């Protein structure tokens, strides 16, 4: 059976679900950030797969994937900076203990 668009979409969905579970269920803030990176990668796979199979000569999905990578890099830098700043002031990065703004 040859590989088609649906294989890539289902692979992307599986990776996204794993990332979703990790982002919702983990207490360590760095692991949550890592799960978010997995989700962004899954979205990129779907983008590139659509670009490859629907409009193979226009590359629009690949351009979108590049912009997603830029935003992911910025998000990782700022997110890790926030985590380190929180660790400095509170000595923990356990998200269940960082609840100052929780209602």
């Amino acid at each position: 059976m040859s590989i088609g668009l649906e294989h890539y979409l289902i692979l992307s969905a599986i990776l996204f679900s794993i990332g979703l579970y990790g982002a919702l269920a983990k207490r360590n803030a760095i692991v949550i950030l890592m799960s978010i990176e997995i989700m962004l990668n899954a979205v990129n796979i779907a983008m590139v797969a659509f670009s490859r199979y629907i409009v193979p000569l226009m590359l629009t999905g690949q351009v979108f994937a590049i912009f997603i990578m830029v935003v992911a890099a910025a998000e990782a830098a700022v997110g890790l900076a926030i985590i380190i700043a929180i660790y400095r002031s509170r000595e923990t990065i356990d998200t269940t203990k960082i609840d100052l703004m929780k209602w």
Partner: protein
Amino acid sequence: MGLEIAFWILAVIGIGAALAVVLLSNVFRAALCLVLCFLTVAGIYVTLSADFLAVVQILIYVGAIAVLIILAIMLTREVQRGSPANKLRIPAFFVAILFLGTVVGTVGFAMVKDQWRLAGVAPLEPTTPALAGKLFGEGGFILPVEIAAILLLAAILGAIVLVREK
């Protein structure tokens, strides 16, 4: 034939590595598995004949973001405490399964009804000149490129300001 074998190997390793990221209790090992997952995603891009994106994936994710994450793990000393799950573990599992079921059902439905307007054209190779034309050429994405530059500058400045010693 080689493409199919490569896809299945990369998909299995990638999903296994992603599962290891969320299931391993040692945060440092989880980060190493995340690097493996990024590498397999780069391989998936190669099977999609997106050569430029594969190289960029290795440079940005495996090179830069992985180093950032491992550095943050070293700086926060949470490795001993591990990465325990919070009390939302069971609902989160069901939300993830629900999402997966929805997407797989939709994709299966579209596949049965043959709703994709697939173009039977061979993909463009190599993609780098075409991508450069898209990003910087006439009627392309030059304004988003400029905005992305401003976003990266703002993110770097923000990160420096956040972690600066008072």
